[in-house]
């Protein structure tokens, strides 16, 4: 294993030190418990928004802390969801009296830790609403399983809720909007290579020199099936078809198309993929109103990509376009 780290156990703390050195003019970094919070938090009267999850998905979530998006982010160890005390402290730090939204990706660990935090947060008279993201169509959904994973749509939920909160929407309005975004979004991902966590030191799965893994998540976990690598047009088809069928998306829908890199994919390939996605969307009569292309929710150095389609309504569009000023997503500011 070769990584730009000092020691496997020190990755999170060392990276947080880098975040503090880089963005100390706009965020405050707490080390124990670990969270990153807007320097001007709590913003009085504004709904606070926090998210969190294992590290290794950067820029998610720490890179999204700032006006127009998250008030705080709680990073866990690499691929390990954070602990309740992180969320509790972050919740307190961002509560400006209007309540706090927890944006939680649907993983057993995340959900349970956030549950415990929400219980604690509530007991201290802070109103907490949880928005669960579970947009990954690669996973079968049923009452008897862990359900679908939260992946790409999480970034969109964070941005759109952030916009609504900045616009002084109420706790319930922000949370409901977040849930609507989640319901209207679908994602699927694939990998050309596995990734290696600092803690394990080994590839997260083995893949032949000519194979791709379809239906992967963002934790280096294997996907639903593997196949011989095909052209980008075929890979786009593999991801788009289940997405389009699942919502379903239909002719005339206005969408946001998000082509996300898993961390190790050259940007030129993501643009190439976007070309294929746009083509397929066009063939299905979708109108792509907005797009996002780049590494926004990653899986360490994994090569591959995910596609997220979000069916837009006017309110989502308005808050997507609203100003945002974070290290990783910035416009209008």
């Amino acid at each position, binding site marked *: 294993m070769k990584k730009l780290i000092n020691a496997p156990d020190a990755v999170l703390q060392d990276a947080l030190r880098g975040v503090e050195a880089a963005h100390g003019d706009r965020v405050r970094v707490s080390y124990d418990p670990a969270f990153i919070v807007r320097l001007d938090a709590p913003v009085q009267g504004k709904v606070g928004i926090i998210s969190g999850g294992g590290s290794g998905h950067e820029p998610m979530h720490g890179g999204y802390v700032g006006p127009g998006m998250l008030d705080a982010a709680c990073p866990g160890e690499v691929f390990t969801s954070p602990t309740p005390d992180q969320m509790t402290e972050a919740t307190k730090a961002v509560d400006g009296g209007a309540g706090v939204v927890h944006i939680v990706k649907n993983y057993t660990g995340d959900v*349970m830790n956030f549950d415990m935090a929400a219980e604690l947060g509530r007991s201290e008279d802070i109103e907490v609403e949880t928005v669960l993201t579970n947009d990954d169509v690669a996973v079968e959904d049923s009452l008897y399983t862990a359900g679908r994973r939260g992946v790409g749509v999480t970034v969109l939920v964070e941005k759109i809720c952030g916009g609504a909160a900045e616009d002084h929407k109420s706790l319930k309005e922000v949370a409901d909007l977040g849930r609507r975004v989640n319901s209207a979004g679908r994602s699927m991902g694939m990998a050309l290579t596995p990734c290696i966590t600092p803690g394990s030191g080994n590839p997260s799965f083995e893949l032949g020199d000519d194979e791709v893994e379809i239906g992967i998540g963002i934790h280096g976990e294997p996907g*639903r099936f593997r196949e011989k690598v095909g052209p980008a047009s075929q890979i786009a088809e593999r991801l788009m078809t289940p997405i389009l069928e699942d919502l379903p998306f239909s002719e005339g829908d206005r969408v946001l198309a998000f082509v996300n890199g898993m961390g190790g994919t050259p940007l030129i390939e993501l643009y190439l993929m976007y070309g294929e996605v746009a083509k397929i969307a066009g063939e299905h009569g979708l109108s792509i109103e907005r797009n996002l292309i780049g590494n926004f929710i990653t899986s360490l150095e994994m090569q591959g990509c995910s596609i997220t389609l979000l069916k837009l309504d006017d309110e989502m569009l308005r808050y997507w376009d609203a100003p945002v000023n974070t290290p990783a997503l910035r416009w209008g500011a």
Partner: protein
Amino acid sequence: MPVTRDATLDWMKRFAGEMAEHRAELVALDTAIGDGDHGTNMNRGMTKALEKLDGAEQADPGAVLKTVAMALVSSVGGAAGPLYGTLFLQMGGALAGETEVDLPRYAAAWRKGLEGVQARGKAQPGDKTMVDAMTPAVEALEGASDLDSGLQAAVQAAEEGMKATTPLIARKGRASYLGERSKDHQDPGATSTYYLFKTAAEALAG
């Protein structure tokens, strides 16, 4: 020989030792059907737990387990943190104020713990989780006639439960995303639970 404060402390030290020793094994199991951190998580948590146990005096077995619970909850994260945290929290609650715990009360504490784990994680036996090792072990304790033989039986039941996870298709936790491909792999959490019973028996044996 009843379960005392010292035996409980000894148990936790042994369990921490096993988690350090078997870190790589648990990581490998979790790499196959999860995200490869279970060993690191448990080792980090139990290291922290020993620190906390060293830092203050615990009056009884319940206090020992509650200290461990809080250390795990605030340092493990992932699925294992809340689950083992809840287990020890519930067991600790059941054993608060006790000094010499006999078999019925010990088994009842485990039952409480298991119920907590299931309430938190919603897993049923057969879902390919730690519940598959814990359930038969707790039942073995409940059906035993004395602590020593009960714990021996529990260890054996936990081991069987752990091994029995191998052919299962996971329905909870990260492994469930693999569907059919989760077959033929032993569940990491069931494995750490086996070590938990193994060290409990060792600690009681002295």
